[in-house]
């Protein structure tokens, strides 16, 4: 199934070619990443139509901004960061809310939540995360795994920003309580 | 009219083929009678708009703004056909341009195209949204034999899922793909039936003789010097198997022929 490992260096090389306007390189990059990005977006939005549009927007954005890509972090993570925000755009369009400028947080900066998350699901606290209520899990995934701001998470989940914040606090307390 | 299949409208030039097709396409009001498409009365709203959602129309002499590009004019008509989502619409435009083999010219201005290519663009816009009723006025005009063959193939394929009404004055063309034939002459419907039925109209009326006939309605000289004629038999003639063209000529050459339906 998986023949040989595709490395980030290959992705970087593709991005460099895309930045020079190479359509074939875009297609290759798409073939490498579109599958998992689609699967991962689908876990955050049940409407295939919105997922498809977000996926298309993602690679159109990759085409336009390949030049701006800084060699920090993984290309895959960069693509995912674009994808989840394009999905949020789609969710917003469906339910119109006042548009404001999104602060683009890079997914590579490890936040407190992310560290907590790594410990939680990787280590012995997996059970603690699994015990959380689904809505608390959701906000943790949106903020810690996807690296979204509370505003973005609110749009993705279709709940008010304040609710995201309170749920996040509750999730943090519950997880901390189980820490040794 | 039955759903599905290719219906060919035959008739002499100026016989009212275009008027009939324009009325069918809801572009013009019929001088008499009413047009119903899928049970919708096209003379009243909101039935007419609903009917128009199901129609694709290729006019006889299609024209577009000369400075616009191929993609633009088809995209514009796609908007008129209520394809609102920009990206899906562009996919659909691409699909119909592919179908008429004009994808490579998508970015070219209309003014740079030959007449045949403009007709193909117009055919492409008729295919937008895969309408249930396609009204194509002389789609074979200006095509070379090879392109005509591909058109024939396309019409047959389309006829599997839609009713395709095609006007032509090429009887061979009609015989090749039609499931039904209409003959109009002088603004009147003269025949409505299958190609075989039209052919059978000439059964027993087509002759070949060595002498030039005097009484025949239509006659022409064959390469071997004999004469082929339609109508009453000349002396020393023998009957031959008629073609659909014979049936058609038989019909339009007979002013007394009754309206058949």
């Amino acid at each position, binding site marked *: *199934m*998986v023949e040989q*490992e*595709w*490395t*980030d260096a290959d992705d970087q090389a593709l991005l460099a070619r895309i930045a020079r306007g190479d*359509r074939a390189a*875009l297609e290759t990059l*798409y073939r*490498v*990443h*579109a*599958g*998992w990005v*689609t*699967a*991962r977006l*689908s*876990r955050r939005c049940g409407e295939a139509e919105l997922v*498809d549009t977000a996926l*298309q927007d993602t*690679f*159109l954005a990759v085409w336009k901004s390949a030049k701006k890509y800084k060699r920090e972090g993984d290309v895959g*993570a960069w693509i995912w960061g674009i994808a989840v925000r394009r999905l949020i755009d789609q969710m917003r369009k469906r339910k119109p809310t006042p548009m404001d400028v999104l602060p683009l947080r890079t997914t590579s900066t490890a936040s407190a939540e992310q560290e907590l998350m790594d410990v939680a699901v*990787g*280590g012995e606290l997996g059970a603690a995360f*699994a015990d959380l209520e689904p809505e608390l*899990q959701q906000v943790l*995934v949106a903020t810690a*795994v996807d690296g979204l701001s509370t505003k973005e998470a609110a749009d993705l989940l279709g709940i008010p920003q304040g609710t995201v914040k309170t749920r996040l606090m509750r999730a943090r307390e519950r997880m901390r309580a189980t820490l040794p | 009219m039955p759903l599905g299949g290719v219906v060919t409208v035959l008739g002499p030039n100026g016989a009212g083929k275009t008027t009939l097709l324009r009325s069918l*396409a*809801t*572009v*013009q009001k019929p001088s008499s009678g009413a047009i119903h498409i899928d049970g919708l009365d096209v003379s009243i*709203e909101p039935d*007419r*708009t609903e009917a*128009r959602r199901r129609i*694709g*129309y290729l*006019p006889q002499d*299609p*024209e*577009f*703004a*000369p400075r616009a*590009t191929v*993609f633009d004019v088809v995209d*514009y008509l796609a908007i*008129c*056909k209520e*394809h*609102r989502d*920009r*990206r*899906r619409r*562009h*996919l659909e435009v691409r699909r119909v341009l592919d179908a008429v083999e004009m994808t490579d010219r*998508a*970015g070219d201005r209309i003014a740079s195209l030959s007449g045949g290519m403009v007709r193909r663009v117009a055919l492409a816009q008729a295919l937008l949204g895969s309408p249930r009723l396609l009204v194509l006025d002389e789609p074979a005009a200006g095509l070379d034999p090879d392109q005509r063959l591909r058109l024939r193939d396309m019409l047959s394929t389309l006829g599997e899922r839609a009713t395709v009404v095609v006007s032509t004055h090429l009887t061979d063309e009609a015989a090749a793909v039609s499931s039904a034939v209409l003959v109009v002459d002088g603004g009147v419907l003269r025949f409505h039936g299958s190609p075989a039925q039209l052919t059978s109209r000439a059964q027993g009326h087509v002759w070949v003789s060595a002498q030039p006939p005097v009484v025949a309605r239509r006659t022409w000289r064959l390469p071997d010097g004999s004469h082929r004629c339609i109508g009453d038999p000349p002396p020393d003639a023998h009957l031959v198997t008629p073609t659909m063209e014979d049936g058609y000529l038989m019909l339009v050459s007979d002013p007394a022929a009754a309206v058949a339906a």
Partner: protein
Amino acid sequence: MTDLPLDPQLAQRYATGQLSTAEAVQVEQAMDRSGQWRALVGTHVPAERLDLNFMAIAVELDAPKRGRVERVMVRLGLDEHVARLMAATPVLRRSWYLASFLVLFFGLAAAGTENTGSIGFFLAVAPIVPVLGVALAYGPAVDPAHDMTVATPVSGFRLLLLRSVAVLATSVVFGGVAAVIVAPDHGLEVLAWMLPALALTAATLALATVVPTRSAAGVTIGVWLVVVTIVGQAATDLTLFGGIAQPIYLALAVIAGIVVVMRREVFEVAGVGA
């Protein structure tokens, strides 16, 4: 920390949405770290879906850029498809903008150099601009693909209205700009042509339900010029644009508007406005 071992079954369950959030997070973290995990998950998304999405991307990259007018309209909040319907007319092109702006600008410039009385010339000419615009905005005479458009579900009446609004709006904007540039000290009377413009435009549309749009525009302009000349000689230049006259234009516009709406049916088949 230990990496999640490659597990085709887990990947399949992830991609088909069968994992709990806790399990899914493990897979996602594995994907963040491993290209092999991404590839594994990716194999469970149907190839046809990915192909179709890539085609959409390719078509989008090939699609022509929107025109400037359309971009302005979209920025003003119009839907993209409505903007295209409005903009797809020979009127909303640079040559039209230029012509209408020049007429308004020089009309006003000619007036601005003398006393207030001569602004009457500008006020008489300005309403003609949108009428000409409407005449050139819609119909078989200006759209060679008119027959094909008529056979679509889009309403010809709606198209005509959309474009008339666009034409009126640009005329008003240009007239306003010209007024600010040329005659900032003239005061409100430089705007006195706007209601007449509305009335003449509406009258043209009403007439266009009977005769071709171009003839309708010709008749309206002709009648207007005659009225302007006669009244201008009998009274002062500005009588036609005074406080008594303005409500009459409004009433005219309303009446003509009602006529248009009642007779809108004629715009839905070919042959009108030829």
